[in-house]
């Protein structure tokens, strides 16, 4: 059974005013347990609206959302449990930190779940180790941390609820390359060790190609494509037509293929690129040797 399922999900903003607009329309997706789904799309394509439906922050205008096979709006009291099942970490989550210490801030979610002290303690340390924050960090004020550390502390605050599904909205935006890699590795390790489902909204195709198992492409408020990374990036032309980017390495290989070089245009990680190029040059070299 799929962990997340939406049925004709539609959401209208500002109903009844001249500004009425569909943020998402007729979204039907099914996400299996344990996937790492990359969500890509333009600004305004409905990514943020979609993820806010998955943990019940927004109520669909039409359509249904099923988490674990259960319609989340069937019963009003289930909404709170959905929030703990689907952990949502917004963009720039460091601006939600408020407690005196990092420890207390990470403990905010588990405390709201009504867990007992020892369990909260265990979860806070668990989450902190997932994001690489030390004991010394936990006793500091969150406002004394560096930008990257703040970001990690905030993500730990969501991880500490141990949700079945973790959704991260652009977790790497505004960070330097090193901070970005740290966060991406951390997410990968988190998924490997907890076997939970992870959804990442991102503008970086490179990150998605590297990390994700499935890709969801949103365009003009609807689902344009959903499939494995191979399936999606084999349609690079279409993605570019939507005004979205493909990984830089894909661009290089598409360009090479266009100019008559004998390589595949469907390369989307550096590793694949290396293999493809060495294949090409291996052929060239032997030919060269034979020629002389």
């Amino acid at each position, binding site marked *: 059974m799929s962990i997340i399922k939406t049925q004709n999900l539609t959401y209208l903003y*500002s109903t*009844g*005013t*001249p500004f009425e607009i569909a943020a998402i329309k007729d979204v039907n997706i099914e996400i299996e347990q344990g996937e790492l789904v990359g969500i890509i799309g333009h600004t305004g394509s409905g990514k943020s609206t979609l993820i*806010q439906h998955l*943990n019940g*922050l927004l109520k669909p205008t039409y359509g249904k959302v099923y988490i674990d096979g259960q319609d989340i709006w069937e019963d009003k009291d289930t909404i*709170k449990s959905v*929030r*703990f099942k689907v*952990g*949502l*970490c*917004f963009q720039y*989550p460091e*601006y*939600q*930190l*408020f407690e005196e210490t990092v420890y207390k801030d990470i403990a*905010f*979610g588990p405390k*709201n*779940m009504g867990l007992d002290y020892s369990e909260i303690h265990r979860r806070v340390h668990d989450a902190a180790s997932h994001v690489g924050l030390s004991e010394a960090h936990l006793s500091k004020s969150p*406002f004394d941390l560096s930008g990257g550390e703040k970001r990690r502390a905030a993500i730990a*605050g*969501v991880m500490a*609820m141990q949700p079945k599904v973790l959704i991260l909205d652009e977790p790497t935006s505004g960070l330097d390359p090193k901070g970005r890699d740290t966060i991406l590795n951390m997410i990968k390790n988190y998924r490997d060790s907890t076997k939970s489902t992870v959804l990442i909204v991102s503008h970086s195709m490179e990150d998605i190609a590297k990390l994700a198992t499935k890709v969801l492409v949103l365009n003009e408020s609807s689902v344009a494509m959903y499939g494995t990374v191979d399936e999606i990036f084999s349609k690079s032309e279409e993605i570019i037509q939507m005004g979205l980017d493909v990984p830089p390495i894909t661009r290089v290989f598409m360009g090479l293929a266009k100019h008559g070089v004998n390589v595949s245009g469907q390369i989307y990680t550096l590793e694949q690129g290396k293999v493809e190029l060495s294949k090409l040059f291996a052929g060239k070299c032997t030919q060269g040797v034979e020629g002389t």
Partner: protein
Amino acid sequence: MIKDITIGQFFPGKSMVHRLDPRVKLILTMTFIITIFLCKNFFALGIMLFSLILIIISSKISIKLILRGIKPLLFIIVFTAFLNIFFMSTGEVLLEYKFIVVTTGGVFTAIFMAIRIISLIIASSLLTYTTSPTMITDGIERLLSPLKFMKNGVHTVAMMMTIALRFIPTLIEEFDKITNAQKARGANLETGSLVQRAKALIPIFVPLFITSFRRAYELAFAMECRCYQGGEGRTRMKQMKTGLIDIYGLAFMAVILGAVIFLNYSYTHVI
């Protein structure tokens, strides 16, 4: 909750009302409101209502929106109307039950007051519906420019007003964002005792304050980087110009005012 408040919102457009010079529009709105209070009888008030409908039509703002602006104040309108029905005792008696006496005078006054309040709300919300906040503050600044001799006066106040108005939507957006983020961590804002609910706001207000201070610094730096020095010798990108349309507007208002004064004196006996 916050989304329901329409007063103060701006709906861009190109209608006659939108194109009026903001200074003229401010003066016209003020005169209109004063004229509403000058009305002494139904004929005069009828003229006001009729001209208000004309203005609404020419502003091309949908009736639905205007009615929505009245909705939050409906209680006050009904309440004042009721008070008038029961406590005015002029004219013929319509109904008598123990100490409750309803008279024609009371009913008339109630209707009169209700129409008056509704026209007031519509007139003032039409101003904000058709004028952007910056235009309004610019207009106020220009209207108050005779007070320039005051130290740190008009310009500073107008700039503060502009900035404050400009950041209301930003703060609301920020508030919503932080609320959602904390709700996603299971914050409970809807239930609990008063103390619990007040406590539940801490996780929202602490980040909101910190963000506001950060924004204030950033804005101050950005203004300094663009050599902002205050109002002295500053010119404007959008020069306000009065045109034919403003003359029409003023003439229209003058006709209404004249008609109201005339009707007030012609029919002194109807309320």
